[in-house]
């Protein structure tokens, strides 16, 4: 369908502009304060001589005027070259790719958990609005919504690792474990439970609350009355007619929350030693590894933009009204 294609092209172009905007903002922000990576490298090296930091600056092109640096960065970015990370000693792309998988695994598990459970809980609460079951779910959601991520992580470690000893406290797999693939996966799964749950809770609560009110709103709409007038059971009314319609705002919210979740993963990865992007970002910020930071922020925004695009496509797949008027 041509209208669909033009919708897609338009969205891609918009996404491109957004990513460029983000890169510019980050580049500017990261170059405002005094000090640079050469200072940090000289510092970690334990001092060195005055020539050392200058030699590093020359080596990394940090002695160029900032405008030239910007132009250089943007031109190499167009070739998808994110530059070289001097704290990780490898191309930024490689440094990111090494960690991206772990972060994506954590994020997608958390999103899936939050979305599926949240929608389910919201459905149940919305269908039983005003009843005790609704009250229980609503209170749980309220609690989940108010619990600080890092505190929850600590409490979970305290309970499940320290007191009960059921689950590992951190890492992604048992190092040096040899075994068939399914055992390896099981092992990763075991490590994944606590961090994914910690990351998911807040979003689960958001989705549950949104789904609940959405279900209640949709349930009051005319076409639901039509469905009832057809003589169908309440269960079928909700399953066939309420769910999909009620899910639309939740999908929109999902798109909006991806960026936030990436931020949350910094904390979660720190607490659970998850070998993902988050912790590397945190270290890169302190070491002022501008290239790596720009790269991570670039890739994260690409992730967010792509997810948003996917959510939009999903949305337009569910809602036939979208796509025509963008």
């Amino acid at each position: 369908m041509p209208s669909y294609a033009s919708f897609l092209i338009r969205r891609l172009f918009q996404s491109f502009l957004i990513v460029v905007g983000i890169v510019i903002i980050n580049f500017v922000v990261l170059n405002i304060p005094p000090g640079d990576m050469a200072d940090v490298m000289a510092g970690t090296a334990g001092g060195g001589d005055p020539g050392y930091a200058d030699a590093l600056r020359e080596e990394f092109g940090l002695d160029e005027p900032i405008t030239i640096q910007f132009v250089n960065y943007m031109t190499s970015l167009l070739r998808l070259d994110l530059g070289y990370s001097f704290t990780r000693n490898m191309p930024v792309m490689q440094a990111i790719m090494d960690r991206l998988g772990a972060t994506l695994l954590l994020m997608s598990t958390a999103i899936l958990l939050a979305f599926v459970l949240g929608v389910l809980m919201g459905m149940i609460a919305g269908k039983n609005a005003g009843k005790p079951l609704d009250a229980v779910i609503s209170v749980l959601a309220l609690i989940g919504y108010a619990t600080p991520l890092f505190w929850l992580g600590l409490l979970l470690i305290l309970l499940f690792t320290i007191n009960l000893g059921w689950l590992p406290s951190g890492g992604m797999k048992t190092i040096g474990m040899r075994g068939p693939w399914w055992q390896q996966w099981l092992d990763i799964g075991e490590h994944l439970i606590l961090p994914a749950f910690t990351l998911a809770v807040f979003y689960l609560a958001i989705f549950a609350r949104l789904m609940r009110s959405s279900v209640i709103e949709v349930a009051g709409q005319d076409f639901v009355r039509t469905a009832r007038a057809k003589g169908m059971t309440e269960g079928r009314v909700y399953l066939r007619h309420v769910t999909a319609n009620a899910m639309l705002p939740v999908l929109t919210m999902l798109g909006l929350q991806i960026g936030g979740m990436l931020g949350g993963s910094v904390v979660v990865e720190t607490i659970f030693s998850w070998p993902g992007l988050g912790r590397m970002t945190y270290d890169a910020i302190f070491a002022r590894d501008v290239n790596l930071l720009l790269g991570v922020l670039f890739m994260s925004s690409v992730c967010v933009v792509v997810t948003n695009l996917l959510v939009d496509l999903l949305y337009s797949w569910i809602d036939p009204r979208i796509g025509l008027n963008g």
Partner: protein
Amino acid sequence: MTDAAVTVATETPLRRRKRPRAVFISGIAMLALIALAALTAGLFWPAGPWVAAGEPYTPPMTAPGLPLGTDVLGRDVAAMLAYGARVSMLIGIASTLAAAILGIVIGATAGYARGWVDDALMRFTEVFQTIPSFMFVIVLVVIFTPTIATITLAIAVVSWPPVARLVRAEFLSLSSREFVQSCRLIGMHPARIVFAEILPNCFSSVIVVSSVMVATAVLVEAGLSFLGLGDPNTASWGGMVANGKAVIRSSPYLSIIPGFAIFVLVLCINVVGEGLNDRLNPRMRN
């Protein structure tokens, strides 16, 4: 033409029922209590939280005058908590206020001007909405060194887009509403239309959104402090959790108490926010 009486009858039970008033009131009461603790901290602990009040690692309820015990440096946890409430509330409110103002200005401009101004501002808003916000806050805070002011501003910088979008949407819908058109027709100046006619009608929605933002800002501040990015010169709850984390086995109370304080504050803000939503949201009122 709908049947008015029937409308009342059919819609009330189906729509979201107002949450019990008692919950709303107790939320406000609890918030007031925390605010009171924050404000009067100076009366109870005039020397501030940064004084040794007893042996380090005194557990709660074991020493007279130290109901919540002491921390690693022998500071009174209760005093830290009270002074920490200042930081949490101050940053929560100040950053939300800043974000709301920024959001209103941008949203109102976009919504009223429309056309390319709207387009440009909305792209700009999308950029800020797409940047992973917590990461960006960390970058800003680290780069500009953590103080109360930079933390507040950094949180505001990432929090305004929802307000801007909301205000823009309200402006778009309100400025096509007949009462606004009527004001244009009687020759009212656009500035007056914006400030006297449209803006007041957005405020209830902005307040509802803002209440959520305060809660988020409190959580973000706590998260920053937990990562060691709080203002090092103030007692903050997130920082207390981080400090307590090192001794979570021997003195778990040092991370549990401040974490619980954050939880309660955020919970109360949310409860009050929902109450406000029930009472102010035009969709709920009509």
